[in-house]
């Protein structure tokens, strides 16, 4: 379709939307879907048609609204009321509420009254929870693909990269390197073919960020990838999604189909000479986020083993061609940057870290879910305002960045959320997982959990990682079962240094991060596990200190014999 047709379509869709007096958004992602959001939507629809109000009330199954701990969620627009813990029996009441404004006490709250929503700043997740992720027209009606249209018709490729540089967007998935720089390298590389790869295979066992974005607003990521393709001169994109994220794969597949049918992807986009196709690649269960070369090997259909680090994907990536590998969240930020300008984006957040960051807030807070906050917000505000504090017990630490990150204890709770302050504490923003821990959590056990992750995800190519992660797990396993001795403690520290220095790729190099982080702040807990054979948090199942003392152990078999 041509640009004129495209704008007319968006305008026409907005006019149809105005016919409805009320919109009811039913969260259909992740937790809410599993708790029966589909039944709630069907019930709402049948009540609407039975009462003959289908023409004034629109019911939409949306992506993640974010307030996952209180799901299933229903949100009413324009009054912006939120119904929590909805059951199918509440449907009647919700419709009644839309039609007559009848209000039972304590059953709803305005989003404006909940700190969980008011403290957030949504750019990436702006549409998530407001649009139907399975409808391209809904996305276009909410300003979708306008950035792509603007880029193709008014901005030369170099201009897109300049805009990105002025936005100072930093790599959300990795170490916070400037995204504009990588794009520039790929754009300058001379080759007949180039590729764009979106890494949606975050191995973090406790994070939902990429999935939340892809399930809530898949077109935004596709649009970002198309703009990237336009800027660097690529005609083929791959989106690599973890295989067990079925819903995300299904939604992205549907989104690509719809976009290609409307000529928003594929050949001659907006009747220009720019072509861009996107294919899905399903991950098969090994983490490749440790290294982009491993990800590339997997897309080529081989074992996902990393190459030596002198191979830069931006110059020699997929099939030896320059390849732009980036994170889901980076791509989802691009449309807003192009539409509103890099300066606007740079004005959000802090001087060094612009923009916002999506986090998956989990653990032992009162509320949790998918949140997006401006960079620089103190961690305390996330835990106590957005999360509503600890459910029971005392705050102990926040584990940030999943297995690749580290922990931030109570004395550093006022740390602003940005790449540099987190890195100083040995934590990482990484995949955006924030696990809030209370005093019932044993840090050694947590380190053991993450070491098991590395042990399972290791590709086995280099020896330090293959053997080291196993040994790391074995030592931590001994500690949590009360069988470790002092020598293990020394070996543990030595092993961590060895893994960091000698592993081939980022996966092995960051394997000891969670151990080193908790060793630094909670050394006493490790010492208690070894010397006193005690778990201060009481979560490890050890033998009692008396039974485990050497004398007792020796005496036991003798008694049996």
């Amino acid at each position, binding site marked *: 379709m041509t640009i004129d047709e495209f704008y007319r379509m968006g305008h026409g869709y907005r006019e149809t939307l105005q016919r409805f007096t009320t919109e009811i958004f039913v969260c259909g*992602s*992740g*937790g809410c879907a*599993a*708790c029966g959001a589909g039944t709630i939507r069907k019930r709402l629809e049948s009540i609407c048609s039975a009462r003959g109000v289908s023409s004034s009330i629109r019911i939409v199954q949306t992506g*993640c609204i974010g307030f*996952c*701990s209180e799901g299933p969620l229903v949100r009413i627009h324009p009054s912006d009321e939120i119904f929590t813990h909805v059951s199918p029996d509440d449907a009647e009441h919700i419709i009644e509420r839309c039609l007559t404004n009848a209000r039972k006490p304590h059953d709803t709250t305005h989003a404006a009254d909940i700190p969980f929503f008011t403290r957030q700043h949504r750019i990436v997740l702006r549409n998530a929870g407001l649009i139907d992720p399975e409808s391209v027209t809904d996305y276009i009606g909410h300003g979708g693909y306008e950035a792509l249209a603007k880029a193709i018709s008014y901005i030369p490729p170099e201009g897109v990269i300049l805009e990105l540089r002025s936005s100072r967007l930093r790599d959300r998935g990795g170490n916070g390197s400037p995204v504009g720089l990588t794009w520039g390298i790929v754009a300058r590389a001379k080759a007949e073919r180039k590729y764009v790869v979106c890494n949606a295979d975050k*191995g*973090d*066992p*406790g*994070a*939902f960020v990429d*999935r*939340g974005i892809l399930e809530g607003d898949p077109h935004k990521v596709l649009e970002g990838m198309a703009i990237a393709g336009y800027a660097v001169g690529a005609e083929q994109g791959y989106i690599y999604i*973890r*295989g*067990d*994220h079925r819903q995300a794969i299904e939604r992205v597949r549907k989104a690509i189909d719809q976009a290609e049918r409307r000529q928003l992807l594929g050949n001659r986009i907006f009747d220009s000479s720019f072509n861009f196709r996107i294919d899905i*690649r*399903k*991950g*098969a*269960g*090994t983490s490749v986020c440790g290294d982009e070369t491993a990800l590339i090997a*997997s*897309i*080529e*259909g*081989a*074992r*996902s083993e990393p190459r030596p680090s002198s191979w830069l994907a931006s110059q020699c990536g997929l099939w030896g061609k320059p390849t732009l590998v980036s994170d889901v969240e980076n791509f989802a930020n691009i449309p807003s940057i192009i539409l509103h300008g890099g300066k606007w984006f740079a004005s959000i957040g802090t001087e060094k870290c612009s923009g916002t960051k999506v986090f*998956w807030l*989990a*653990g*032992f807070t009162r509320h*949790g879910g998918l949140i997006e906050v401006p960079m620089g917000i103190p961690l305390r505000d996330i835990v106590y305002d957005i999360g509503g504090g600890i459910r029971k017990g005392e705050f102990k630490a926040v*584990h940030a960045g*999943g297995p690749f990150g580290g922990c931030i204890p109570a004395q550093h709770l006022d740390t602003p959320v940005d790449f540099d302050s987190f890195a100083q504490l040995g934590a990482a923003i990484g995949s955006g*997982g924030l*696990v809030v*821990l209370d005093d019932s*959590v044993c840090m050694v056990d*947590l380190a053991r*959990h*993450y070491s098991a992750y590395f042990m*399972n995800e290791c*590709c086995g190519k280099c020896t330090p990682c293959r053997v080291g992660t196993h040994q790391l797990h074995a030592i931590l396993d001994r500690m949590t079962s009360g069988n470790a001795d002092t020598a293990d403690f020394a070996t543990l520290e030595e092993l961590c240094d060895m893994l960091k220095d000698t592993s081939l790729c980022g996966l092995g190099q960051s394997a000891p991060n969670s151990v080193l982080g908790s060793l630094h702040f909670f050394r006493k807990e490790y010492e208690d596990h070894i010397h006193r054979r005690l778990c201060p948090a009481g979560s490890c199942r050890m033998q009692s200190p008396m039974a485990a003392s050497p004398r007792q152990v020796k005496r036991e078999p003798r008694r049996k014999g």
Partner: protein
Amino acid sequence: MPERNDTNSHDFEPAITENRFKYLDRALVKHRFRGDALIEVLHTAQELFGYLSEDTMSYIAESLHLPLGKVYSVATFYPAFSLEPLPGEIWRLCTGTTCHLRGADLLFEFLTKGRVSHHGDREMEDITRTIKPSSCMGLCHAGPVGIAADERPILHAHENDFVKHGRNPREPEP
């Protein structure tokens, strides 16, 4: 695509086998017999047959013009593929960080009595069910979370939910 439910039975009729190869062919055509689509094709085969037999692998190797060794190396490398049929229904249990802290690891240990295959799949004592670890499902507040074979979620999972004739997980906890 056929229903996911029939993916685990491996003693199917020849006519059904024929049908499954037809679906596999469709996937091969869709990827234009390109060697780099190997993982995608293996995914389809795994979904259709429930496991990758030697016959399936050599069929795929021939169709994609790849050496059988390469197909075998990829199939054994990734945990998503299995070379032999998994016993019984496949149930999943979240091993995300929050679920772990809420007791998923103890649950695993209890259910499997420590029997873990090299890919991390765990067999239950009665071989009617295989328990697979799964990544975060976004239900952290209700952890530990499991998914039954029919995609029904099990919130605040308990040993009994995984054992046959156990407590109905929809019922509130006592």
